[in-house]
């Protein structure tokens, strides 16, 4: 598969409409950036969009595993940046979605090996060929994060309902500034715990971050199963979480999808407690 082909046929390349480069980031590690990237990449591609997902976690690559493409990876981002192979050669076609491609990270290299300006140029090139370029950022706010962010115009921040994760997202949003229009995905929410007052709620988290809410993903056992298999859950619209990823993709694409919720039926006790709790200073 040659994603470049259709571009080469165009006589006037100046008329090409550039795609959107979106970095998926969080600050804190292990909150679900890679899972989110794989699922949103899949969901966007299932809608017919041309999508490239880039693993910017050089040295700790795993987007290929989550997408089940590890056996197909021959080259990686650094091979392209160092001009050892062409971009086309390095793009790995997805198993499930014809319009989805992966650019894998180098496993035996360091984050400092990435030239930030070359990374910016690479993302710019990808934007000429794809409608969406999703960049899976590594944890942290150092060099690897900078390289992940450099080519993007938009950011999706992934946050779990935990004090440390919210604090880190707050920091990342501060570093991003206004330019990236960060939007929030709350991941691994457990409605039952929220109901019992044992977990921060969507409202609690966003009362602090106050970002446009792109979606809420529950803590979902099927994520583990689908990650084991390497088939993103977003392919399965009959699963609630799979459908939630599809709804987020629709929202990214600009569709007016109903406000994101996970089913939380408030009990009388919750409301009573919230009533008294709300009165407290």
């Amino acid at each position, binding site marked *: 598969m040659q994603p470049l082909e259709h571009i080469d046929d165009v006589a006037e390349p100046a008329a090409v409409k550039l795609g959107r480069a979106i970095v998926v980031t969080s600050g804190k590690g292990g909150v679900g950036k890679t899972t989110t990237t794989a699922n949103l990449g899949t969901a966007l591609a299932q809608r017919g969009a041309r999508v490239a997902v880039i693993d910017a976690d050089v040295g700790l690559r795993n987007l290929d595993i989550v997408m089940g493409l590890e056996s197909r990876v021959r080259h990686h981002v650094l091979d392209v940046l160092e001009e050892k192979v062409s971009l086309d050669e390095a793009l790995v076609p997805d198993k499930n979605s014809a319009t989805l491609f992966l650019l894998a990270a180098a496993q035996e290299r360091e984050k400092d090996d990435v030239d930030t300006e070359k990374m910016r140029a690479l993302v710019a090139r990808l934007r000429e060929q794809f409608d969406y370029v999703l960049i899976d950022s590594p944890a942290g706010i150092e060099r690897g994060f900078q390289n992940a962010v450099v080519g993007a115009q938009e950011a999706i921040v992934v946050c779990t309902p935990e004090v440390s994760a919210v604090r880190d997202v707050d920091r990342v949003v501060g570093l991003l500034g206004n330019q990236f229009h960060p939007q929030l995905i709350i991941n691994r929410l457990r409605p039952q715990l929220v109901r019992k007052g044992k977990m921060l709620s969507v409202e609690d988290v966003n009362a602090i971050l*106050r970002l446009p809410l792109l979606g809420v993903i529950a803590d979902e056992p099927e994520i583990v199963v689908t990650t084991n298999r390497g088939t993103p859950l977003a392919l399965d619209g009959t699963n609630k979480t799979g459908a939630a990823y599809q709804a987020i993709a629709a929202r990214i694409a600009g569709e007016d999808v109903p406000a994101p919720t996970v089913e939380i039926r408030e009990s009388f006790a919750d409301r009573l*407690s919230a009533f008294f709790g709300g009165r407290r200073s």
Partner: protein
Amino acid sequence: MIDFVKRLFGQSGSSATAKERLRLVLLSDHLSLAPELIDQMKHDLVEVISRYVQVDKSKIEVGVERQDASVALMANIPIVSVHRPSGGTPTDTASPPIASPPAPSTASASVAAAPNVSSPGLDRAAGTQAQRRKRRRKGAAPGAPAPAVTPAHAT
């Protein structure tokens, strides 16, 4: 009372603890001040305001929020009485305890001020509770201090 109700309904309320810890840690992060200094600041703030009006110390909330390209310090200080506390003088630093507050007035002082911290890129800004609520309704993305990274120019 609240604890009683919570116990009655078997709620541990650890999310409330999480919320409070989060609020404090972010206040500290944003102001680059140690939590003890924030406590001190809160104390001093109350002291100054108490010279003019009687406030309900138990209900004071101090927080910080990001606004476009700045950080604002928000203080919510409920006023119990608009009269000067009895026996208090403007130089009296020890604010008297509230003996038996009258029916609590619904008025609350909302102080908004920009922190004068050394972090670069923090503009001075002020906001009121009303503005804050308006922004919240709009769902506007909060601003932030000077970005450390510049995006590739948008389409």
